[in-house]
């Protein structure tokens, strides 16, 4: 049981896909200007990694080794298309904000990385948990970055005004740089910097 729990907790910090393995940076820069799309993206990636890990793990004994990457791609692509279609049908405004990045989950290195490194060699339940853990590890960084960027870039959180009007009257100005992708890279860099000494202990 504690081993299974580790599958979920390890990717949150010690083996975090974004800050330790430096995977999935592209979408972490693109969808973190606002908190809401970042949360939806985090959930989408979690669903896709967990389910594709599960499916590939179930199939792992039958998958011909010669075409295993193709089989993995078919499974991931199917799940991503389903997520994209569901978002378009039931969360239209969010799907517009995420635009191409939902489709690009297919190429997210975290998904393929977990399939090759974990699901091909482990049992379904463990693979499923590993997928959840890695999705949440990725998602937690996304949410932290989006929280900082939305708060200082727009003065809002989840679209609600947080920084009081009084502060603006005193001459406070939203930091426009926060909205642009380079700032996400800098924030991720700071998170890695804060996390590093803890890891070396």
């Amino acid at each position: 049981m504690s081993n299974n729990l580790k599958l979920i907790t390890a990717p949150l910090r010690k083996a975090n896909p974004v800050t330790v393995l430096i995977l999935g940076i592209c979408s972490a820069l693109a969808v973190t200007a606002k908190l809401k799309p970042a949360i939806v993206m985090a959930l989408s990636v979690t669903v896709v990694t967990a389910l594709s890990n599960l499916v590939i793990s179930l199939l792992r004994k039958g998958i011909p080794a010669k075409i295993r990457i193709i089989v993995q791609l078919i499974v991931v692509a199917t799940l991503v298309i389903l997520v994209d279609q569901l978002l378009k049908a039931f969360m239209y405004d969010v799907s517009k904000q995420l635009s191409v990045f939902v489709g690009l989950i297919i190429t997210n290195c975290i998904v393929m990385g977990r399939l090759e490194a974990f699901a091909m060699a482990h049992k379904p339940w463990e693979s499923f948990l590993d997928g959840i853990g890695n999705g949440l590890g990725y998602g937690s960084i996304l949410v932290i970055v989006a929280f900082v960027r939305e708060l200082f870039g727009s003065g809002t959180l989840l679209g609600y005004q947080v920084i009081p009007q009084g502060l603006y009257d005193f001459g406070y100005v939203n930091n426009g740089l926060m909205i642009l992708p380079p700032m996400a890279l800098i924030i991720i860099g700071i998170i890695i910097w804060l996390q590093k000494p803890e890891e070396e202990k």
Partner: protein
Amino acid sequence: MSDRYIFRYIIILVAIVSVLLSAAAMWLQPYQKRNELNEQRINILKAAGITDVDNKNAEQLFKQHCTDKHEGDMPYYVIDGSITVIPMRGNGLWGPIWGYIGLSEDHKTVVSAVFDHKSETPGLGAEITTDNYRNQYNGKPLDQKVDAIAGATRTSKGVEEMIERTLKLYLPYFENEQ
């Protein structure tokens, strides 16, 4: 594993996947179509100065306010019997831009306008979709200019050109009709 096994495996897998995806597409299409239609309705109502509208009440509000609808080569919508809303298409810096502009009954002032874009730069050209930008058009006489977005001159010019070209086409048409 023989080649025959590989072929059989991949064909069965692809068959299952395609059935699954087709079923999902058929189930979800009506919802997606409605969302797209609602987005258009929201934009038309916003261009007519009705801002308190979202995906949930779009259909009902649109039916309530849209009194006349012209489709065909020169599409336009009449809101509340007086405001004319015209769709526009143009070019930004990186790709197409589009929107709706609402004109008052005498076609001399802008009621409001909405804009959208395919691939303008976030924080610069993409600012044309913000309320800050589009509110500049509220109540503006047709010949008066609006402030361009700093750092996004080409996108702002594109919007200006789009409005000018569309009105050049529509205004004589409206005059002839009256």
